[in-house]
């Protein structure tokens, strides 16, 4: 019996894993920045945050 279970499906190479990790971190940072942006804008505009004139 083999020590390691046989992997099925798509197996990522080390390079693919590294680039996926970097992309995931970038997406997380972008989402975090968006949360901060919405929070700060809400503080700045106060109740007027709902007032969006055309």
């Amino acid at each position: 019996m083999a020590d390691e279970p046989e992997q099925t499906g798509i197996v990522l190479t080390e390079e693919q894993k590294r680039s996926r990790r970097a992309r995931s971190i970038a997406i997380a940072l972008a989402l975090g920045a968006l949360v901060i942006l919405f929070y700060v804008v809400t503080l700045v505009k106060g109740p007027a945050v709902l007032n969006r004139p055309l």
Partner: protein
Amino acid sequence: MSLVSEGAELAVRVRASSAPYEPSIASVGDYVALMKPRVMSLVVFTALVGLMIAPAHVHPVIGFTALLCIAVGAGAAGVLNMWYDADIDAVMTRTSSRPIPQGRIAPGEALGFGVTLAAFSICVLGLLVSWLAAALLAFTIFFYVVIYTMWLKRWTPLNIVIGGAAGAFPPVIGWAAATGSIGVEPCLLFLIVFFWTPPHFWSLSLVRAGDYARARVPMLPVVAGAEETRRQILLYSAVLAPIGAAPWVLGYAGMVYGMTALLGGAAMIAFAWRVRSERHAERADRAALQLFGYSILYLFVLFAVLLIEDGLGGLLGRGMGA
């Protein structure tokens, strides 16, 4: 077969030949490159000028949000442009190293990325700043991607002339973000960028005519020849110079801007005249590249002076000009 149908066929072949199920090796830098950061920087700068010269107080956070959305929207347009033009990019020397032709990003990934960025930038601009600015940003992205990239670019040598409107909108969006309306001043800035675009791009396409011919893009030098292109560059430069000075003539800018616009416009015509009169192949290419480089400087200085003058409350010129 026409250039259009051959181009469309080539596009289908490139898209069909990609491997959509191969796990991606794209780096974050590849996605940044898709957004055309150099074009984004010019868009942000012109939008900043539109935002700052507007007669309305804008909170720095709101101003930053507006510029961020405009930058991301411009990036989205760049991504969708690279998605659709991957076939053209693959055969042109200048663009063959882009992420899609190189196979680092699959066309489908680029399409998803571009649509997501466009939707986010428009919605956030509308929700946090102004729906008029958001509508203008949406129209700009639509114009650049659908009207210019998908239609005009492969169809007519006037692609750059009409398509230039997309690049001219950012100062209007910046102004709309600040005021919630559109005035005469941003329309003048629109006209400056609009008439600046043809001589700027045609000077580059004169040098890259072989590239465009190979990619079957009907740029003016490919369709009408170098001679006619040089003539058109001079004509558009001659129209651009007085339009560049219009904000001063109409009283929206000060004396320093006026002098800068007049001198800069005269230099633009002089560079265009050199392009028109130079015939020796090597010197002609050099003259075209000099005009290309100068045109960037011209636009940057013009907008920078407008920004500085406005920042100093018109002290530099309005008092003297009045």
